[in-house]
C-alpha cells in the first residue's frame, strides 16, 4: 500500500508539473514521466499486459509524436502572443466548475472500497485475450472499426485535394 501512495504522489506531482512548466517541451517530458508512473500503477494492480501496452503505445509512440510536433512548433518562442485577461478569467471559472463537479460526484459516490477481482490473473495476456475474444468480441471489433475510421479521416485530411492545388 505504501508503494501505491508513493507512486500516486509521483503521478500527481508530475501531472502538476505538466501544467505549470513554462516550456511546452518540458511539459511533454513531464507527461512522459506521468505515464510512466501509470505503468507502475498497472503493474501494482497485476495488469501486466495493460502496463506494457501503456508503455509501448503511450510512452513509446503517442508521446514521441507529441514531442515531434512540439519540437517543430517551438522553433520560434517569441511568436506566442500573450493571452488576454478575459480568456484567463474564463479559463479559471471553467476549470473551477469542472473541479467542483468532480469533487461533488466523488462525494456522492462515497469512499470506494477496493475492488477484489474474482480471478487475480485476469491481467495476464492469455486470460485477457480469452475474455476479450469470447465475452466482449462485438465491442472489441466495433472499436477496431472506430480506429479505422479515425485513420481514414487522418489520411483524408493529410492528402491534398488535387482540384484545389
Amino acid at each position, binding site marked *: 500500500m505504501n508503494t501505491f501512495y508513493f507512486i500516486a504522489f509521483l503521478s500527481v506531482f508530475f501531472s502538476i508539473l505538466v501544467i505549470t512548466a513554462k516550456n511546452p*517541451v518540458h511539459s511533454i*517530458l513531464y507527461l*512522459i514521466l506521468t505515464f510512466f508512473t501509470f505503468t507502475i500503477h498497472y503493474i501494482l494492480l497485476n495488469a*501486466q*499486459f495493460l502496463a*506494457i*501496452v501503456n*508503455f*509501448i503505445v503511450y*510512452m*513509446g*509512440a503517442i508521446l*514521441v*509524436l507529441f*514531442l*515531434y510536433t512540439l*519540437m*517543430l512548433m517551438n*522553433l520560434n518562442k517569441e511568436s506566442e502572443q500573450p493571452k488576454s485577461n478575459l480568456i484567463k478569467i474564463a479559463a479559471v471559472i471553467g476549470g473551477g466548475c469542472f473541479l467542483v463537479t468532480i469533487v461533488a460526484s466523488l462525494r456522492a459516490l462515497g469512499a470506494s472500497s477496493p475492488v477484489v477481482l474474482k480471478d487475480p490473473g485476469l491481467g*495476464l*495476456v492469455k486470460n485477457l485475450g480469452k475474455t476479450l475474444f469470447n465475452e466482449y468480441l462485438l465491442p472489441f471489433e466495433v472499436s477496431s472499426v472506430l480506429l479505422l475510421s479515425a485513420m481514414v479521416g487522418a489520411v483524408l485530411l493529410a492528402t491534398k485535394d488535387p482540384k484545389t492545388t
Partner: protein
Amino acid sequence: MELAEIGIKFALVTIIFAISLVIAMYSTYAERKIAAFFQDRIGPNRAGPWGILQPLADGGKMFLKEEIIPTNASGFLFIVGPSLAIMTACIGSAVIPWGQKLVIGSHVIDLQVADINVGILYIFGVVSLGVYGVMIGGWASNNKYSLLGAIRAASQNISYEISMGLSIIALLLVTGTLSLRQIAEQQHSWHWNIIYQPVGFILFLVCAFAETNRTPFDLPECETELVGGYHTEYSSMKLGFYLFAEYINMFISSAVMVTLYWGAYNYPFMDWMAAHIGTNGAVILGVVLMFAKIFLFIFFFMWVRWTIPRFRYDQLMDLGWKVLIPLAIANIVVTGIVITLINR
C-alpha cells in the same frame, strides 16, 4: 527469494552488463578492421599487437576530452539525452535467455535475468523508448541540424516500429507465447523459427537496422546533409555514450534476432551432446554457440554498412510504409491461414 538467489541474479546482471560493454567496445574495433578489409586498407594497428588496444585508447580519449555544453543549450536535458540513450540500450538484455539452466550442486542457475511472460513486449517497449535519448539530445542542443536529426530519428523509429511489431505478430502466431524463455525452448535442437517464418525474419532484420540507426538507415546522423545529425553539438564522453549506445543496441538486437528466429542457445544434436559431455557441458556449449550466432549478426550489420549506400529520406519512408507494412500484414494473413489449415 533467498539471499543466495539474489546474489546469483546480481552476479548475472553484472556479468551481462560487463559482457555487453566489452562487446560494444570491441565492436568499434571490429567495425574499423572490417571497414579496412572492405576498402583494402590495414585499419588500426598502432595500439598494441594488431591494434587490439585501440578501443581502450579511444575510451581514454573520450573521457579526457573537454566537456562542452553550448551556451544556448538547455543544460539538464543536454545531459539527460545521452544518459537515456545508454540506459535504454543496457536494460534490453534483462529478458534474453542466454542459455538453459545450469545445475551446480544444489543450486539451479537460470541464465536469464527475468523470465517475464510478456518478454517480447518488454523488448519492444525498450526499443520504442530508445528514441527519446536521440530526440531529447537533439532538441536540447539548440542547433538546427541536431533538431532535424532528432526529428528524422523520431519519424523513422515510429514508422519501422509498426512493421517490426507486425512481423513479431506472425511469429507469435507460430509460438503461441510471449515469453522469450518459452520461445527459446520451443526451438529445441533444429526446430528454429527461421524455418517457419523466413519472411518475418527478413522484415524484422530490416526494421532492426532502422531501429538501431545503422547504415543504410542512418539518416538521423547523415553527415552529408546534417553535419553530425543529432550529436553535432556533443563532445567527449557524452558523444561516446551515443556511439556506445548504438553498438550496444546492435548487440542486443542481434541477441533478440537469434533468440526469436535462429534457435537461441539450441543447436542440432544437443540431446546427443548432453548425453556425452554432461548436461552442464552441453549448456555451456549452447551459450557459446549463442554468442557465436550473435557475433555473426554483428558482422552482418557491419558488412551491410560498408556495402550498401545510405537511402534517401523519402525512399526510407516509402520502403517502411509501402513495402514493409503490406508485406508484414500479408505475412500475418498467410501464417494465420496455414496454422488454421494444419490444426484442423
